[in-house]
């Protein structure tokens, strides 16, 4: 993806490529039958193959292939019906075989894309849709875990390999727009989105500074120092490492089928059907967002927010199901009020004291004009206290029902006007803000139980008469 040039440096453009290592959710490893389990004791989930005992051979895990196909389909990739496995050689203690099995030449999926939203504008409320290209998805063996014990000058190796984390390497270069791409550096092993962003920002700036001062960028690997907030050169090797890629001879080409190419009478246990997998995919976010916009008339940025919070979409849809209120009202309440409360107290949707049913009931009361919107906010605050009361109970307890009696209201308006002749005078002079004051006074007198719109209407009528 190409970022816009930073403020004040119009002549530079940065290009960033991300290499994302994501662990597949499966019961056993990619090539060996040993289990995958988080927080198991070190080296307790290691098969003979994982320990690279001589004579052991890799066996492909079906579930992992299916997961890769699903990922590829979800990211709009072309799924390669034939893909190959390769060996990538280097010596390191956490790589017992001396090579890693990966898919360098012909990976399982290529040429995809992902749309996402970037928050912009005032208050970050505007969401700009963007697209990033996915070059390829490849299945790859994970290495072990290394724990460096500097005190005893030794490194401890755990070959369980259940890291459970996302790991990202970022490739960064800068260039002048219109000119060829610059030399890139690789920043390795970034474990959080926040540090990823910091590292990239730092590295872009470092490269720009370097080049503006007449220096040059080396094609090298760097690591990010969290405390110092900067990248530092990792390897002092001359030139890049040669991984001596070679086809993995123990794994035949991975052949996938679809409905048209599936051979007749094929054993379903032995083949993978891309079309079948596609059918098992849940609705993809972009489709969901589109549907939300169409169905409920919400803004695109609202759909992003709904999807970006875990459980929020489901919450929203449950409220919609149970309430008579307009979808736009529901959207507004869920995204502003509900989400606001959650964020304030740093809660997840699943931890919310307010259930979809409760909110639905509240919105019904509002919709039927039983209460005013101000009163509704009050009720919501009460619900949040988790005292087990329903909105209806709160309303009657606190006597928040909207004042129905128009006659009583007219009387009240009349007395309020009498009590504040100065305000009335201002009004007659043509001061528009004065009416709000009057409305406010009447409202206060009704303990917010009167609908401000009705108050306004009555007052205006009285004034004109």
């Amino acid at each position, binding site marked *: 993806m190409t970022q816009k040039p930073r403020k004040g440096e119009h002549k530079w453009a940065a290009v960033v490529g991300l290499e994302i290592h994501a662990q597949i959710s499966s019961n056993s490893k990619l090539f060996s039958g040993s289990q995958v389990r988080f927080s198991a004791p070190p080296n307790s989930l290691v098969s*003979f193959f994982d*320990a*690279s*005992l*001589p*004579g*052991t*051979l*890799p*066996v*492909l895990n079906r579930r992992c292939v299916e997961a890769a196909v699903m990922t590829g389909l979800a990211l709009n990739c072309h799924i390669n019906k034939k893909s190959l496995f390769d*060996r990538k*050689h280097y*010596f390191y*203690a956490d790589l*017992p*075989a*001396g*090579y890693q099995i990966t898919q360098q030449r012909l990976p399982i999926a290529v040429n995809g894309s992902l749309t996402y939203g970037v928050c912009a504008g005032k208050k970050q409320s505007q969401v700009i849709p963007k697209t990033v290209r996915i070059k390829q998805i490849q299945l790859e063996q994970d290495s072990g875990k290394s724990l460096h014990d500097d005190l005893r000058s030794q*490194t401890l*190796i755990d070959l369980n390999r259940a890291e459970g984390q996302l790991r990202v390497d970022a490739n960064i270069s800068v260039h002048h727009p219109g000119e060829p791409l610059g030399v890139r550096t690789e920043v390795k092993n970034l474990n959080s989105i926040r540090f990823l962003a910091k590292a990239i920002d730092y590295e872009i700036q470092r490269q720009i500074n370097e080049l503006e001062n007449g220096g040059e960028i080396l094609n090298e690997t760097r690591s990010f120092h969290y405390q110092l907030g900067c990248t530092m050169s990792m390897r002092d090797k001359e030139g890049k490492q*040669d991984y*001596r*890629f*070679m086809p993995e*001879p*123990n*794994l*035949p080409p991975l052949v996938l089928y679809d409905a048209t190419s599936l051979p007749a009478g094929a054993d379903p246990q*032995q083949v993978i059907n891309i079309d079948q997998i596609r059918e098992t995919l849940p609705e993809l976010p972009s489709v969901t967002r589109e549907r939300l916009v169409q169905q409920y008339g919400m803004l695109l940025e609202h759909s992003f927010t709904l999807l970006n919070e875990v459980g929020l979409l489901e919450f929203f849809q449950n409220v919609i199901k149970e309430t008579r209120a307009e979808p736009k009202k529901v959207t507004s309440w869920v995204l502003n009020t509900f989400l606001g409360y959650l964020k304030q107290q740093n809660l997840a949707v699943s931890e919310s004291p307010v259930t979809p049913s409760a909110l639905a009931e509240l919105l019904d009361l509002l919709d039927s004009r039983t209460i005013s919107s101000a009163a509704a906010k009050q009720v919501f605050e009460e619900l949040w206290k988790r005292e087990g009361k329903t909105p209806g109970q709160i309303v009657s307890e606190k006597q928040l029902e909207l004042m129905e009696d128009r006659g009583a209201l007219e009387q009240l308006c009349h007395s309020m006007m009498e009590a504040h002749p100065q305000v009335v005078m201002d009004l007659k002079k043509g001061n528009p803000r004065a009416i709000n004051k009057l409305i406010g006074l009447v409202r206060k007198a009704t303990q917010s139980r009167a609908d401000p719109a009705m108050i306004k209407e009555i007052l205006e009528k009285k004034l004109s008469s």
Partner: protein
Amino acid sequence: MLGRTLQEVSAALKQGQITPTELCQKCLSLIKKTKFLNAYITVSEEVALKQAEESEKRYKNGQSLGDLDGIPVAVKDNFSTSGIETTCASNMLKGYIPPYNATVVQKLLDQGALLMGKTNLDEFAMGSGSTDGIFGPVKNPWSYSKQYREKRKQNPHSKNEDSDWLITGGSSGGSAAAVSAFTCYAALGSDTGGSTRNPAAHCGLVGFKPSYGLVSRHGLIPLVNSMDVPGILTRCVDDAAIVLGALAGPDPKDSTTVHDPINKPFMLPSLADVSKLCIGIPKEYLIPELSSEVRSLWSKAADLFESEGAKVLEVSLPHTSYSIVCYHVLCTSEVASNMARFDGLQYGHRCDINVSTEAMYAATRREGFNDVVRGRILSGNFFLLKENYENYFVKAQKVRRLIANDFVNAFNSGVDVLLTPTTLSEAVPYLEFIKEDNRTRSAQDDIFTQAVNMAGLPAVSIPVALSNQGLPIGLQFIGRAFCDQQLLTVAKWFEKQVMHVLCKKGEKEKHYKRKKKSLVTSPSDITLRNNIEELHGQNTKKEIK
């Protein structure tokens, strides 16, 4: 009893003529007597006797597991055996005791076979003489046949009795010597460029290389993953078929085995006539380096087929001359990759240096590997470098495809089986063999065998006759992929013809103990055994390495 075929002994066991324990003890005793051959690295005496005991119980209860129950076998020391040291004849794995059995080993054990021990080889199966392992070279039992000894006595250059002993060929020389010296009835070898067929030819045995993908490689410590197969060494073709029947079949642990059902069991029909058979003779295999004796036998064999009604055609395998260099590139590349796991960390040898990981790797690998292995690793890494990959590795793969296509074309032209020599000549004396280095020897000796591995085809070496020196010479049959049964059927027919020819020569009366039509009781076998026992007495005091 020790001189019989596997099939015969199996029958004897079933009939109660001998018990597994008696058989086991006889073999163990002979192993001890023939220790000077250096065929075995590990003799698993306790294990074998225990297995014999269990086998005996089964026979007593009439519940034998089959033809292999109670049969002593040996396994090349590059197959993983649970609880039994597996060294690959290398310092790198000295003392390494695997926690699992190779699939083929497990299958043999499941059939009740008795594991006599692990046999000697060239280090990591790299070599064609079985001379380059850390436990020393293997001696060809035929070095001690009366005929050969008499011929050598005429040689004024021989200094002492044992200075001109012969190599077994390699790299499965230990397995070949073990079977040839009657210490077991079958042995597992491996075959990457001829490592089972070559020593079979030099030791007067049947050496069978199955189609790639027919037999599991799980547990076979790899040399070249895309060419290795487990090999079978026996005294006759029927025996090889019995063993193959136990071993063949898909293995979920080996993704390169094929899933198509194989016709099991491997019962070999006796071919009545060969009039429908077409034998191909590849003309590129007629090279000047071929010894006149082998050439003559090859020609006679072709004539034999023709005289019995088969069609014999000359065929061309035009890319034959490129196969050595192609093999060299692909083999060393895979070796460089496969040997990367030997770093001293998880298992095997580790040096004493612990200054840094890199220093430890370097010293461990220098100490653990011999120079043949190190040489191949260096070559292989060179070919795999980014700047060389296209020009060497990819090119070699393309040439490999051409070589494989040569065979396809030959078979498509109506040929059923190809007939070629197995080796350039009979076995040579060790002192002569070591005049050239391992690489040169391998390039020379693999010439007829290694294209077969590149094409993944089945092939078998059959002992045909004795040379003028009294040493065995074998010929090779090559079949279509996964037509192993057909190949062995033809080989069996040929074996029978050879026996008839020998019988006709009237040597039968002179040398046979029993009037049996089996190749194992061929003229020299009995002599060989007698001589070994005789020589043992002379050699007990010598320190043979």
